[in-house]
């Protein structure tokens, strides 16, 4: 990990913080009812997006699932585009047609989110097939939750990618639950997704998904081979979702009991933003006052964008039939 410079560490932290704060501000705003689109916050899981996207080139492409804001922002998607989209405005990244679960920003290689489990894996595999056919040095990345592994199509994609040795990275955010269903009702005891992937001849690594260094390191250690034809890779990133499955609430606000409070708290201790910031301080790269001032800047920036997004016009109903 010695190849991470202090500057990189700082920008990773800022990125984590920016994404965290964007979602936190949106989660508050969501309570007002002005964002009429089912929204899945990735709060608590930011290190996966930042660690992975930090290892990608601009020519690399990303697909993701319903919990997509973190990946969109980390890949460089326009924050205004995201927020205006949640507000259903013409200025949204999908011009208000898509909502939270259908985001896109092609200018930065964020090729789309789709909320149907399994889609991101197949899409990324397809783009990787195209890259390979054209001898392009690009990689396609699929972000998804461990719930997608319940779907057969995920295994079809892995099998295909491995058969053709495609340059695709499957990045699983294993947050232990699909909606409110724990792994135990969905997989046999003792299941290891990495073991499964290995049996499908997809190289795999399990990493601490709340440690941006670890995720970034994992990407760095596998991406070159993947890019140059060694075949697909699975990164299983262990992480945890802080809020409810869809919507802004904390478990206690909605009287949710499907997971123990202590479990949530122990994962919140492993907050990826705090850990990254803590390292900056402990390594002597930054001081708490730096962190505080970045935070203030970021807050201002996002609040600003939010206000601008509200000012974006509504789509004109006469455009209903555009782009079919």
């Amino acid at each position, binding site marked *: 990990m010695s190849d991470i410079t202090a500057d990189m560490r700082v920008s990773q932290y800022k990125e984590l913080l920016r994404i965290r704060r964007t979602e936190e501000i949106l989660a508050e705003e*969501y309570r007002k*009812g002005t964002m*009429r*689109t*089912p*929204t899945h916050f990735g709060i608590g899981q930011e290190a996966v997006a930042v660690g992975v996207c930090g290892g990608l080139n601009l020519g690399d492409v990303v697909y993701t699932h319903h919990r997509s804001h973190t990946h969109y922002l980390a890949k460089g998607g326009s924050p205004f585009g995201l927020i205006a989209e949640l507000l*259903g*405005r*013409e200025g*949204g990244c999908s011009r*208000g*047609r*898509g*909502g939270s*679960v*259908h985001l896109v920003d092609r200018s930065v290689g964020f090729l789309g989110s*789709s*909320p*149907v*489990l399994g889609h991101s894996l197949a899409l990324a595999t397809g783009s990787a097939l195209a890259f390979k056919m054209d001898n392009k040095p690009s990689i396609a990345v699929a972000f998804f939750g461990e*719930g*997608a592994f*319940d*779907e*057969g*199509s995920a295994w079809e994609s892995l099998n295909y990618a491995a058969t053709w040795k495609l340059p695709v990275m499957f990045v699983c955010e294993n947050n232990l639950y*699909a*909606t*409110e*269903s724990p792994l135990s*009702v*969905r*997989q046999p005891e003792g299941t290891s997704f990495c073991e499964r992937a290995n049996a499908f001849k997809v190289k795999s690594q399990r990493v601490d998904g709340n440690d941006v260094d670890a995720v970034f390191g994992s990407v760095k250690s596998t991406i070159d081979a993947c890019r140059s034809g060694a075949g697909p890779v699975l990164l299983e990133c262990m992480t945890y979702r802080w809020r*409810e499955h*869809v*919507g*802004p609430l904390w478990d206690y606000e909605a009287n*949710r*009991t*499907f997971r123990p409070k202590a479990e949530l708290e122990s994962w919140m201790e492993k907050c990826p933003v705090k850990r990254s910031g803590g390292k900056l301080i402990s390594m002597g790269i930054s001081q708490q006052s730096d962190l505080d001032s970045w935070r203030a800047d970021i807050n201002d920036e996002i609040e600003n964008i939010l206000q601008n997004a509200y000012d974006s016009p*509504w*789509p*004109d*109903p006469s*455009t*209903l*039939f555009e782009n*079919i």
Partner: protein
Amino acid sequence: MREIKYSKALSEGMVEEMERNKDIFITGISVDYPSGIFGTTTEASKRFGPKRVFDAPAMENALMGIAIGAAAVGKRPIIVSPRADFMFLSFDMLLQLAAKWKYMFGGNGGTVPVVVRMIIGRGWGQGSTHSQSLQSTLAHFPGLTVVMPAFPADAKGLMISALRHNGPVVILEYRTLYDTLGEVPEDSVPVPLGKANIIREGSDVTIVATSFMSYEALHAATELESQGVSAEVVDLRTISPLDEETILNSIKKTGHLVVADTSWELCGVSSEIAALAAEKGFNFLKAPVRRIALAACPAPVSQPLEKAFYPTAATIVKAVMVMLGRSAGNVAHLDRIDNFKGPY
């Protein structure tokens, strides 16, 4: 009669049949959550426990086959999908096995009485991949019974019939209906499959409607009455098999037909009813029929677009008035306040 919610009516139908028949069980994503599919499975879950009401992984494809395999040895599975759209993944098993089972084995393979509940329709900016109404698609395939209860009594009664039927039945439930109230018998009274229901009598025009559009049609009929037009509203209830007789009798009486469906027009239920009129009710018709369906595009999320996308009572009123050669005037007051709340 007492009034209960649509969600409670569905729950009662299931619970009462589960009491009668121990072979019924419920599975699907989140059926055993406290939220219990808009509260429809909570009581069953409490009463019958995890042996008969249990969660399933997101594996729509095999799960449908598993339900069919269970039905083939005597079970009556209820499969629930929180969004009908996910059931595209089940189409292979549903249409290739469930719909064909009885026929393709010449009756010698028995039947596979699977009941599939799918939630459809508008909600909280669901968007294109989370809101589709699949009745037209499913009804096209012989071998499936497809029902769309609009009112609590039908929700309970059709559920009971579905759970007693000797073959696969799909029940499509429109998301915004769960909280609606209506009179529902306390007893287990089945509503026959394959029978439409005249929910309002009238003499000038027939409005055939499905699911949520039956509410809009009633709403429209009230407005039309105030404008001097007597509308008969036929709630289709079952899409396949189609109750041709009830529809044709109504057209015979009124000579005018408007069809309002929750799916798209092209090869949709609205076209089917219009075609029926053109083929078997032609001589009754005094004017061209009118189809009212979703706008011919995927569902947008943004509110002003959603408003343009989904037809309402106002759409129906306008269609009827134009058909009768009259002006509809201002119908903006017909728009309901959309009080469906997210986050899902």
